[in-house]
């Protein structure tokens, strides 16, 4: 179907005048509040302020004054990035006209249209964007809870001190020791992430602890880029990585943090480092706001990222249930642009163009051995649907893999500039 652009401008104006309350001169500017300063929230706040040229009052609420990107944090584990290179402040977003509040959002009153903060403040909104990433499901891995055991068996799946902790554990593993990963069930943040992590841990161990073993316990039959990772592990880390799928007990693992043991298929095994990546759900504030469903994620309209539960609330990125897009920083960034355009259209009557989404996930397997997978997406009435996709091929030559890795570094530079200014 080919759509004429003027048609969209026309419907954009029409929709805007029908659905929105036009701004009245003399009244305060419409207020948009964004909770969560990651790939979705930072991008949305920045684009709302930039594209409305002062027409909106934009506030970003984020607990951490310095943000650590989860994407590329595996490269820090592998020794390819400094930790500081993953960290970004909010000065650039503030300079773009966004009010930054470093506090934790603890409540949403949808009737009053206010957000309450841990510090006691109340922040009113006309539109609210939630981009709170992920939280872990209680009891997802028997024997493990984030509060009690994350210091012993780290998840390192929200980047920050957890990532540094996991790296220090890998570095102090005894020679010939065992690193275990409890991989998550679908859906979860960054589909190739656990397996890129395995690659990076293998690379680090190959340098300093070449007789060490890596055990991956996985509840999934299949995972993102499986053929590429398996080829890479055999090529670069022969004999080091053992992947155990659900058929052999990978899906029903119990952990015993106190004794550093795991129980697989009834068999107790001692491990030296255990990375538990549990089952996931939307960041807590989404559930508090009441926009999630039984799945634990927040269903959204595919053409706008507006929640199905509340016309004034949008959910971006990992927390949303939207269809075919993976939970990734790239996806969240892409969704943020559609949401901010829609919100500007509703509040300011600006043009609303047809939504287009895209995603690419790069993964590093070994030095200069990068691979990627990606797709473009469009809204259908039911979901955000994949239109076209591509994936790196097995057996690609070294020059192409090196170029792919170098491209991923360019992407990191690009997306972080796009998010943080």
């Amino acid at each position, binding site marked *: 179907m080919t759509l004429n652009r003027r048609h969209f401008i026309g419907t954009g104006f029409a929709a805007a005048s029908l659905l929105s309350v036009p701004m009245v001169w003399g009244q305060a500017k419409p207020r948009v509040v964004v909770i969560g300063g990651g790939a979705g929230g930072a991008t949305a706040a920045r684009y709302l302020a930039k594209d409305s040229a002062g027409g909106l009052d934009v506030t970003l609420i984020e607990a951490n004054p310095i943000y650590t990107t989860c994407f590329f944090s595996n490269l820090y584990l592998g020794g390819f990035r400094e930790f500081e290179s993953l960290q970004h402040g909010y000065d650039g977003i503030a300079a773009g006209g966004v009010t930054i509040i470093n506090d934790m959002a603890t409540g949403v009153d949808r009737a009053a249209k206010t957000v309450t903060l841990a510090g006691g403040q109340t922040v009113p909104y006309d539109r609210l964007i939630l981009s709170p990433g992920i939280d872990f499901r209680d009891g997802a891995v028997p024997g493990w809870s984030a509060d009690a055991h994350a210091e012993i068996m780290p998840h390192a799946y929200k980047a920050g001190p957890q990532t540094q902790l996991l790296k220090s554990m890998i570095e102090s593993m005894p020679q010939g020791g065992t690193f275990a990963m409890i991989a998550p069930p679908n859906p979860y943040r960054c589909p190739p992430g656990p397996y890129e992590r395995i690659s990076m841990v293998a690379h680090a161990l190959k340098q300093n602890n070449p007789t060490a073993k890596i055990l991956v316990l996985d509840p999934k039959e299949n995972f993102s880029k499986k053929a590429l990772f398996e080829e890479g592990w055999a090529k670069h880390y022969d004999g080091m990585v053992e992947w155990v799928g659900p058929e052999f007990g990978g899906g029903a693992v119990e952990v015993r943090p106190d004794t550093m043991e795991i129980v697989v298929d009834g068999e107790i095994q001692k491990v030296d480092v255990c990375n538990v990546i549990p089952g996931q759900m939307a960041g807590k504030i989404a559930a508090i706001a009441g926009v999630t469903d039984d799945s634990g994620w927040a269903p959204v309209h595919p053409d706008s990222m507006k929640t199905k539960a509340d016309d004034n609330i949008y959910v971006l990125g990992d927390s949303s249930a939207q269809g075919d897009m993976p939970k990734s920083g790239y996806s969240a960034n892409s969704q943020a642009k559609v949401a901010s355009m829609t919100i500007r259209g509703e509040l300011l009557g600006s043009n609303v*163009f047809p939504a287009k989404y895209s995603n690419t996930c790069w993964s590093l397997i070994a030095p200069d051995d990068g691979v*990627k997978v990606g797709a473009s997406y469009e809204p259908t009435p039911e979901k955000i649907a994949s239109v076209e996709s591509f994936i790196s091929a097995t057996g690609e030559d070294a020059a192409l893999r090196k170029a792919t890795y170098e491209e991923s570094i360019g992407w990191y530079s690009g997306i972080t500039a*796009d998010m943080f200014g």
Partner: protein
Amino acid sequence: MIRQIFLALTLAAATALPVAAERIGDAARGATLFDRQCKACHQIGDGATNRVGPTLSNIFGRKAGTVAGFKYSKSITRMGADGLTWTLQTLDAYIENPKALVSGTRMNYRGMADASARADLMAFLRDYSDQPANIPESEPTARKSEPTLDPAILAIQGDPEYGAYLSSECSTCHRRDGADEGIPAITQWPPEDFVVAMHAYKSKLRPHPVMQMMASRLSNDEIAALAAYFATLE
């Protein structure tokens, strides 16, 4: 005239061959053509010397009028000084009609009208010049693949405001400040170059999978809008 061979590449044919570039021509047929039409005046290869015409060894990438010991026409010498270098494009134009490219040339040759015959001849000549495998900066051994664009597509005036919205999809990877830290800068390109490049991805002549995917769903108007927007982005 220089673009004639590029124009001969149709989009439909090109779409069926998702390769970065195409072979120049058939060097064996070119050797026969050389024997019949060039050898009376030009030598090429080991031990070649200047005769009526200059040696043609290493002609690719060479500035016109610069073979040591050969006395050129003033026209060729001047064009060389002005920057004429023998490439696939310039040599093709010269062989097609020498006097159309260098009006005062002494080369007494009527020209070769058949584009595929010229391509074969150049494929033969190319074997006697520096190869990219040895010298990376030497002339390509294959033709750049650029799509043939309907002049009407190049003439579309893009809407920069629409381009600004569409550009948000580009800036996830390409920095708006024009920095290249692993992904090329796309700001301040001449709009025509931008449009040609995007259509080369759209028709899958250029090989990059992400760019092919991005370009494949952009309409002609949308590509023009992006070109207009990025041309002016500072």
